[in-house]
């Protein structure tokens, strides 16, 4: 795909930065997939390869003290929000030093230090939780905002309606982002979703909503930026529908036989890192620099992966820690 002609005045340094981040996300997930082959990542992995522009763009528009909630496909969002790649890989391998001490794994990755309040193993569950996080911000009169990312499959679950209505009724500072990769597991979401889609539904619930090319990192970031500014100014919740495509299977072990190879091949040509690279090239950034971004990212994840493998597993006593204070099994109360 040719560089967007309207993008004559892009900020090259910034795009370069997003390009690097997208490579870091991809390399992290490639390391995770290798972990599956190496049988060190044991639980399910949902890669976001091909969807990195949404993580990089949306999170790029957030402040560090803003709050992010994500889905089962949340590695990119988490890394973009500022989590350490090594801690993340440790978590995926269930090791000491993982963000959740190895107790959550991929589907529960979270880093409260950087405002990342968690992936979630239940589709759509974070939509209401995010509304509530924003509710607390409003009650506490803070100027943070909450960003909640979910998939196109989540818009058919009740919490989508309940959470959006909640955010609108209470005029809460939250940006909902529907990361629309066309699929819910092995099912094309279009086959199971009626009506005009995520943004139309959001508008019907009273939210201002926009659609964006989710493979265009700058477009995502610009749109998110504008929406976030409005939210931070007290304008209430906003909704961003970002279209993308999942280049891998649903999980690390899914070969995705349910979709034609040529569809995937065609979509590969539109993937966000390639597009960012073409823009950079077009703007005169040397090919070697672009390749260096990738190489650096891969080296970082290689090292993080090695460190994760070398890290010990948590001991069995962790099974009883952080269950609860009152009647905790750690206190012999079972």
């Amino acid at each position, binding site marked *: 795909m040719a560089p967007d002609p309207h993008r004559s005045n892009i900020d090259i340094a910034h795009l370069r930065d997003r390009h690097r981040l997208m490579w870091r996300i991809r390399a992290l997930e490639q390391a995770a997939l290798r972990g599956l082959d190496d049988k060190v990542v044991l639980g399910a992995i949902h890669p976001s390869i091909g969807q990195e522009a949404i993580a990089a763009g949306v999170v790029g528009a957030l402040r560090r003290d803003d709050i992010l909630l994500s889905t089962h496909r949340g590695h990119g969002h988490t890394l973009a929000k500022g989590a350490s790649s090594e801690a993340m890989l440790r978590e995926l391998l269930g090791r000491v030093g993982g963000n959740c001490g190895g107790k959550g794994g991929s589907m529960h990755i979270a880093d409260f230090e950087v405002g990342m309040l968690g992936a979630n193993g239940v589709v759509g569950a974070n939509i209401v939780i995010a509304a*509530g996080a924003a509710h607390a911000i409003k009650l506490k009169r803070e100027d943070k905002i909450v960003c909640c990312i979910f998939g196109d499959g989540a818009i058919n679950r009740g919490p989508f309606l309940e959470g959006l209505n909640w955010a609108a009724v209470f005029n809460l500072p939250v940006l909902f982002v529907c990361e629309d990769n066309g699929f819910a597991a092995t099912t094309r979401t279009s086959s199971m979703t009626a009506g005009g889609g995520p943004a139309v539904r959001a508008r019907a619930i009273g939210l201002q909503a926009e659609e964006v090319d989710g493979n265009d990192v700058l477009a995502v970031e610009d749109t998110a930026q504008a929406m976030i500014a409005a939210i931070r100014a007290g304008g209430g919740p906003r909704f961003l529908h970002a279209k993308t495509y999942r280049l891998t299977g649903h999980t690390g072990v899914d070969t995705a036989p349910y979709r034609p190879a040529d569809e995937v091949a065609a979509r590969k040509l539109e993937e966000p890192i390639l597009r960012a690279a073409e823009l950079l090239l077009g703007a005169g950034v040397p090919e070697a620099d672009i390749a260096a971004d990738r190489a650096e990212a891969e080296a970082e994840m290689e090292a993080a992966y090695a460190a994760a493998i070398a890290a010990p597993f948590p001991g069995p006593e962790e099974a009883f820690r*952080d269950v609860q204070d009152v009647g905790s099994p750690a206190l012999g109360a079972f």
Partner: protein
Amino acid sequence: MSIISYMEAARQALAEEMRRDKLVWAVGEDLGRGGVFGQYRGLVEEFGPERISDAPISEAAILGASVGAAMMGTRPVVEMRFSDFALCAVDELVNQAAKARFMFGGQTRVPLVVREPIGMWRSSAAQHSQSLESWYAHIPGLVVACPSTPADNKGMLKAAIRCDDPVVYMEHKNLWPLEGEVPEGDHVVPFGVARTVRPGKDITIVSWSAQVHVCARAADVLAGQGIEAELIDLRTLWPWDQQAVLESAARTGRLLVAHEAVQVGGFGAEIAAFVAERLGIKVRRLGAPRAPIGYAPPVEDAVRISETMTVAAVRDMLGK
């Protein structure tokens, strides 16, 4: 000491905690008009609609949003109206609230109180009468409280609001008007400490919530028959006062657990099994048959655990 109702006790507890801690707020349907039973009456006038917040009919959002708000440092008191409606928000309570702290490796806490009024209440039928306390006692991460008196409803609600764990707080709908003495001042009842309602040497009866009062009447009847039953009000099902129950049961040599909830899979099974495992004494449960609750009074009453049944069970255990 002052004499107030079970409902008023909870109202005072919430008001006092809201005065003490600005981060405490309550949310649920119709709270601005006092809540469906009047248990929030007058509070919006003092605390305003942000802290005594109405909600849409969105149980999943009420509970789910409270999980988010709790993780962000506020302390929501969540009103579910009838425990039956909380079944519209089970993912939010069981998969989210109860597990967040653990699965995120201790990075967060979810200090919320979910008020779920339980029990049979004047022909409310199958969808407004359930007692599902045993469900939540089975879920790691949750605290389960079932107050039976005005004093406890004040002291336990305060404890629940101050607790850093998610608490399922089950008031019994039939108890709202019950009057009783409540200590003055900052009366807080610690979780996991049972109350001996009546001492006795012949048998230990364990119960909670409204059933405690039925058991107390049964104990009176038994006393008239020369049988001294020790009655223990468990107050909280998780944690539950294993020590008090074991000590009493070891002393009396017999244990009867009585609850309004369905007997099969009820929390009475846990207590009976626990004690039988440890003491090998006679244990017996009295719980509802495994049937939904009907509307017509005789149908409703057929699944109630009465004073007479309690007396008969005790006499039978004593071979009388």
